[in-house]
């Protein structure tokens, strides 16, 4: 019987995903001024996964993270993290998660080592172990040499690495990273990606929000695309891209010929949303159809300045789901900036 | 873009006195608007002096019954000190705006325009005077409503107003110089203790004759004591030339020096660029 009970418990542990949300809603304001920053999000992040949450600024990513990390209470719906309810078991949730938010949450007057010591106290790590742990993490993120310097003298990349180290002090099983590479130079970004992959290989489940397509593509096992507080697509990046179907032919034409060009392109496939000054069409036949397109444009008197054929990208997936491109776009959401953090008004 | 060369739609006229005045008035207007749009920064220079005046009147009323007290009531005594306090605070705070302009780059925007250079400083002084005159009107209005009297009548009212404006000019010139030299609002803020010292180590809040020892000596040497006593004369004594000499000439003298300091600071900053 004892073996049976253990088996049931083990099964529950196996089937209980680290992050589960059902109909999660978070609104701000009231009455006519209500803004639904998160508007019915369902998601499940499985054990050992890197889950990417992709969307433009104001889509609801950070608000969702803040609800899941107990910084905000859900207005409706439910969520569990590490098996604990975020609304009623906030303390247990906090013990199980590590969080690195959008802005590196550090005190510029303290040194890296002092911050790690403080973080250890906050999580009840005994002093002897805390010092060891701090040294391990500093070495891990490459900040040993700078450990006794004030954080205010650190570069942006160093602050992010320290922020990551702080979120790992208590060996959390679930890690939330909210736009971890925003503002970093390409080298620092790559370093951080490698770090995330390493953590994941060691068993940490990661929920990562980003507005960078490449980051989601490179890191995430599965992604969810969020727009205006709702998840519009979810799945493995490869599958999502191939579901979009045809590659996109992008052409630059003179603005005086744009209408004619549009008419021509519409004969070859679906017109796709593009950035300003460019037209796009989905070519089911791929590269084989390019010559015909050029000939038809030429016959219509359209002068093509530039063209390229792009395989489906996450931006195409996003465009197909939302009607606009993620790159260079702001969400047309009314979500207030203060909903994303508890900063000063 | 057309092949035609883009030309300015308006060419700035050669600098003249009229231009300088126009620029000064325009920048004064900008500074005054800037002050009005920061009520949280402006309010303390109205609230605190009135509060201290009310507190002093209620606390020291017994003192005012003494036969040698230099006013009919403590309210009458403290009116001048309240004006001086408000003017000094407002002028210091206004210089902080100038330092902010430098820190945030608006100062350089002015420099790359054909604006008369002195207008950048004089405009700021002008706004300090406008605020000071407003303060005098508001304070005297409130004091009169609560029973104070201006012994010298309308002449005294004008005397107090001019004195407040000249004091604002003096303080603003000094603080603007500090703002331009440092380019830092924090440094200007750091000058507040000096303002406190000037005010408290004087007869702004209490008659000098009741002070003793080194405190009385310092207060006697402090030019602020004499300015305040000149203004108190307008409130409490028959009209006398001494009131004008103290309440006008001393701030005017300080203003002359402080404006030169401010303009010199501007010249040095321009030379360094």
């Amino acid at each position, binding site marked *: 019987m004892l073996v049976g009970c253990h088996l049931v418990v083990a099964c529950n542990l196996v089937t209980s995903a680290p992050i589960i949300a059902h109909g999660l809603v978070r609104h701000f304001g009231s009455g006519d001024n209500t803004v639904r920053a998160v508007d019915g999000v369902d998601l499940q992040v499985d054990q050992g996964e890197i889950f990417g949450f992709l969307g433009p600024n104001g889509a609801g990513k950070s608000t969702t993270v803040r609800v899941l990390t107990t*910084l905000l209470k859900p207005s409706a719906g439910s969520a569990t993290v*590490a*098996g604990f309810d975020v609304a009623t078991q*906030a303390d247990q949730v906090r013990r199980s998660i590590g969080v690195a938010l959008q802005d590196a949450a*550090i005190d510029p007057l303290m040194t890296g080592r002092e911050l790690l010591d403080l973080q250890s106290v906050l999580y009840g790590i005994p002093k002897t172990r805390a010092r060891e742990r701090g040294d391990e993490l500093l070495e891990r993120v490459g900040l040993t040499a700078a450990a006794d310097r004030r954080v205010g003298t650190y570069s942006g990349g160093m602050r992010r690495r320290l922020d990551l180290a*702080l979120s790992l002090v*208590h060996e959390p099983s679930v890690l939330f990273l909210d736009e971890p590479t925003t503002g970093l130079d390409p080298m620092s970004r790559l370093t951080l990606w490698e770090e995330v992959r390493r953590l994941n290989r060691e068993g940490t489940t990661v929920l990562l929000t980003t507005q960078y397509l490449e980051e989601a593509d490179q890191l995430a096992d599965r992604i969810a695309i969020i727009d205006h507080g709702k998840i519009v697509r979810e799945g493995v990046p490869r599958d999502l891209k191939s579901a979009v179907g045809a590659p996109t032919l992008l052409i630059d034409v003179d603005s005086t010929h744009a209408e004619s060009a549009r008419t021509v392109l519409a004969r070859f496939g679906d017109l796709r949303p593009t950035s300003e000054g460019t037209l796009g069409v989905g070519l089911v036949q791929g590269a084989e159809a390019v010559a015909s397109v050029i000939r038809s444009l030429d016959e219509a008197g359209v002068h093509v300045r530039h063209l390229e054929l792009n395989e489906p990208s996450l931006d195409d997936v996003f465009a197909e789901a939302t009607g606009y491109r993620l790159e260079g776009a702001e969400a047309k959401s009314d979500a207030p900036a203060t909903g994303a953090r508890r900063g000063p008004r | 873009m057309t092949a035609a060369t883009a030309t300015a739609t308006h060419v700035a006229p050669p600098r003249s006195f009229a231009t300088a005045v126009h620029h000064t008035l325009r920048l004064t207007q900008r500074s005054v608007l800037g002050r009005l749009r920061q009520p949280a920064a402006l309010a303390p220079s109205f609230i605190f002096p009135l509060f201290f005046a009310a507190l*002093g009147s209620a606390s020291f009323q017994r*003192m005012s019954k003494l036969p040698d007290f230099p006013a009919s009531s403590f309210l009458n005594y403290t009116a001048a000190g309240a004006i001086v306090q408000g003017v000094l605070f407002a002028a210091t705070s206004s210089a902080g705006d100038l330092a902010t302009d430098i820190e945030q780059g608006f100062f350089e925007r002015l420099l790359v325009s054909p604006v008369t250079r002195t207008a950048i400083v004089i405009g700021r002084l002008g706004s300090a005077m406008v605020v000071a005159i407003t303060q005098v009107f508001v304070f005297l209005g409130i004091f009169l409503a609560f029973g104070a009297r201006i012994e010298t009548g309308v002449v005294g009212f004008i005397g107090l107003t001019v004195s407040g404006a000249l004091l604002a000019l003096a303080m603003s010139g000094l603080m603007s110089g500090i703002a331009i030299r440092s380019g830092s609002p924090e440094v200007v803020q750091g000058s507040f203790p000096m303002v406190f010292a000037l005010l408290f180590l004087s007869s702004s809040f209490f008659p000098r004759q009741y002070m003793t020892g080194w*405190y009385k000596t310092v207060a006697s040497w402090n030019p602020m004591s004499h300015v305040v006593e000149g203004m108190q004369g307008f409130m409490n004594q028959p009209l006398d030339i001494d009131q004008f000499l103290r309440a006008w000439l001393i701030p005017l003298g300080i203003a002359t020096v402080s404006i030169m300091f401010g303009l010199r600071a501007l010249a040095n900053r321009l030379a360094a660029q």
Partner: protein
Amino acid sequence: MNTSIVNDAPRSATGREHGGHPLSVSGALVRRTLLRVRRMPAAFVPSIVMPVFQLIAFSGAFGAAVRLAGVKNAMDWYVPLNAVQGASFGAMGVSFGLINDMQTGFFDRLLMAPTKRWALIVGPMAGSIARAALPVALVIVIGFLGGMNVPGGPLAIFYVAVAATGIALVASAFALGLTYRMRNMGAATLTQFAIFFTIFLSTSQVPLSNMAGWLHAVARVNPMTNVLRLARQGLLGDITWNDTWGGLLAIAVMLFVSCWFALSGLKSLEK
């Protein structure tokens, strides 16, 4: 080096068993306060300079008024006032510090710590006492140099310290509550105004018997009057229970209310 930093033992679902002990967390936050003071002394200097300056200014300017009320030395009257005022400056520091933490996002890190919420309040409050120690001590020393009388003996100085400590705690709790709700520099300004008016609309300048009209009515009901009475008694005469209990009660009640204000403000952030 490619060491794993994650424990190879099966990770428990709860991670750390208990989280940070609230007293340890509070202690760490006090240490952090002192660290910040040491590393940014310019921000701390006004809270030392202003009470000392005002002690000298008030006793010099208004000394005659208090002597008229029967006080032997103006220092006897103003040392408790400026000690309490110096202690209250710590509240502004608490507010500025919290705003700064909110701006940098560090406050979120504290909020996510698995510890009792009250530890996040007690820490800064205790830190404000540490900040208050130097200005209060300086004011007392300057008082002695200025000829302050101490007929009540060492207990008189103790009561000055008790009053100052009580006001430091009350003011910092109030500052926290306001800052949690407003989340901008307006909270620091409002804190300053509130503390300033509370202190000065009491027996700050003259005894109750010397006051007139509206000020007398306000000062009579202002709890600060009792606190100042507690602090001043040993410098003006003998220490009596009659002059003591009112001040202690006033501090206790204000502390209770301000702590509730702070805790409810913190809870409102998580809504």
